[in-house]
């Protein structure tokens, strides 16, 4: 059940919440003050690797009629696009690198290799999702307007098709992202300003034309006799990128233990409570450094949501401090191997396609540990254990 008050949910006193907020602020301040040449070198290196990968991929694919070249080129192209979208584009557009004062690596100027125009992404993601994270009815990323991912969302017969929608969303993820800021729900409710809609559609069209032109017309055409094989390579690379980014992103807020919230929580929410909501609403996954970079550092979803504008290469060290705080304040820190996190997501999506309200038959999600039966009885607000049995 969705949470309407994070402090009560976490069994923290007002003073504790304030103190926790100060600890998060201190982490932030330490990182802000220690940003320097090493961090700049990191993003410079990643960008340089990514661009070299793209050049190598495009050149290799001129010979895409030769199967090994097709495989190598497609792999490099997919890897390049994943790096660009995840570790570079997403993070640059969050303003993580604005402090370098470099107009070429700046949230104000970055445009990414994706059909979604940067300005619309920054609105739907940086603003809507990161401000109203996991708040039902406010954060359009909760199920993306087409999936029932929490039992708080009312079941509708349409949800029976969820497993199929889910597969389609994975394959066409970049297109879903492109249309996301249009806010389909508000269009359906006829609340959308038609002029704004027109402006957004124009922006998407401009971007789509360039992206499609490059991947599906220009580079295949430049391959001459290998037109079709280059085309199939480019389609495949885009699909691989789509499925990969879909998985990473779904592991961020839909595994067990990533809580949802009601709009009530937003009323008079303080900054420390905002931190707490980000912590409770996000889920990490574990993996090697390579996996984390390819995931755009979103294996550190919790840290990313607490500090979306701190450089992504610093998340590992931030994670250690955040985990220590969770120990100290007896708060859940949701993480696990990627296959398990994604397995939970899939299970939720499949189960919630039915009118069931039970997501999790054998709850193994971390829960606040400080709650005692007495405390539970004394609270009126909805609490986690109830959510699990509801």
């Amino acid at each position: 059940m969705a949470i309407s008050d994070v402090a009560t949910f976490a069994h923290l006193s007002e003073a504790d919440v304030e103190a926790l907020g100060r600890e998060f602020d201190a982490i932030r301040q330490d990182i802000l003050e220690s940003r320097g040449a090493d961090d700049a070198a990191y993003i410079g290196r990643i960008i340089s690797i990514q661009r070299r990968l793209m050049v190598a991929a495009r050149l290799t694919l001129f010979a895409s009629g030769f199967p090994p070249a097709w495989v190598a080129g497609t792999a490099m192209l997919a890897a390049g696009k994943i790096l660009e979208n995840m570790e570079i584009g997403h993070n640059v557009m969050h303003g993580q690198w604005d402090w370098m004062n470099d107009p070429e690596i700046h949230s104000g100027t970055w445009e990414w290799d994706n059909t979604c125009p940067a300005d619309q992404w920054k609105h739907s993601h940086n603003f809507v999702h990161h401000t109203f994270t996991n708040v039902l009815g406010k954060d359009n990323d909760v199920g993306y307007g087409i999936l029932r991912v929490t039992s708080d969302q009312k079941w509708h017969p349409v949800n029976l098709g969820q497993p199929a929608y889910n597969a389609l969303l994975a394959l066409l993820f970049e297109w879903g992202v492109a249309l996301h800021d249009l806010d389909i729900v508000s269009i359906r409710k006829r609340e959308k300003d038609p002029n704004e809609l027109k402006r957004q559609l124009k922006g998407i069209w401009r971007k789509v034309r360039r992206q499609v032109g490059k991947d599906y017309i220009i580079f295949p055409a430049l391959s001459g006799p290998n037109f079709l094989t280059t085309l199939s390579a480019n389609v495949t690379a885009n699909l691989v990128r789509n499925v990969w980014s879909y998985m990473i992103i779904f592991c961020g807020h839909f595994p067990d233990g990533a809580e949802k919230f009601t709009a009530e929580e937003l009323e008079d929410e303080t900054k420390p409570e905002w931190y707490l909501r980000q912590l409770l609403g996000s889920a990490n996954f574990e993996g090697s450094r390579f996996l984390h970079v390819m995931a755009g550092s979103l294996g550190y979803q919790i840290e990313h949501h607490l500090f979306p504008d701190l450089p992504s290469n610093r998340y590992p060290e931030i994670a250690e401090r955040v985990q220590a705080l969770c120990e100290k304040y007896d708060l859940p820190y949701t993480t696990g191997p990627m296959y398990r996190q994604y397995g939970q997501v899939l299970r939720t999506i499949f189960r919630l396609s039915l009118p069931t309200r039970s997501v999790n038959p054998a709850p193994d999600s971390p829960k606040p540990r400080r709650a005692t039966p007495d405390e539970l009885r004394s609270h009126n607000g909805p609490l986690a254990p109830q959510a699990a049995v509801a």
Partner: protein
Amino acid sequence: MDDAREPEGGPESNVRYVRSVVARMTTPLLPDDYLHLVNPLWSARELRGKIIEVLPETGDAATLVIKPGWGWSFSYQAGQYIGIGVHLNGKWHWRSYSISSSPADSSSRSRRRLLTITVKAMPEGFLSEHLVRGLEAGTIVRLALPQGEFVLPDPPPAKILFWTGGSGITPVMSMLRTLDRRGTMPDVVHIHAAPTMEAALFRDERLALATRHVGLHLIENFDDQHGILDVDRVAQVCPDWDAREAWVCGPAPMLAAAEQRWEHAKLSRRLHLERFSAVLTTSAEGGCVTFDASGKTAEVDGATTLLEAGEAAGIQMPFGCRMGICHTCIVPLKKGMVKDLRNGAEYHENAGVQTCITAAAGDCVLEI
């Protein structure tokens, strides 16, 4: 693509066409974003330059010889300044310096197309210190195109007074070199003040120029020997100062004194000044500044610049020279009014405002 380096040579529109075609392949990036990985100078997206040499001048000054990359224009005028951005501790820091080389040099095909700036290390100026002592040959810097009104017309006026103090000599050095190369040296009096003889920049070159050109009269003032040179002494050593077109560059008090003297003589039209620090004279009313993207707000007084206000509020403000000349810090003003602290000019909704020299005049909203 070589044409991009010589805008006045090849037809520029062809270059643009080729670029736009190639950009269809590199979208959403530009061809430059890939090419500068091969050679750092092959990008016109942000102008770049390579430090070819750092030549020590006096104890605390050095001349940086820079080879500009694609997109650079050598069609500058003697006396103009450029912006130079240096990557230090992960950040690009910008400053502006007068070009000390002559456009007459760089346009000659026989010489390499280089430009120089001369920098004096300022006490507590961490960047100027770095430029003078910490920069190595081969370093890539960012550049901003030449600009400025402190220039010498061509042909030059018949009678000229140059009055320079300290490192204020750099734009005038460019003018002297230009007059020398073009062979158009008119009747020039150059008064230069430096703390000591050793600290006087370009001394040997100026003495050599003076022996070569009968029209060039050098007057040197070394503060340790002759005391501080004030505007009255200038009038003494150059009695016909009021008959000359004057270019004055140096510390702020010197400029203020010159401004007053020329104004008093109703000759302001003939006085050209170059300021290297913004003189913030007026103040605005202040108000509540809202930073739109984050929704953060700051209550500020009318003497606090929008840049300072934003930085204090934790906003990642773009910044450059911090003195109103490089235009790096421009942010769109969404609502309200701001005032230019140098001259009181008002900017309204939808204007791009230089945050480093403007302050809130009432409540306003910045799009950042």
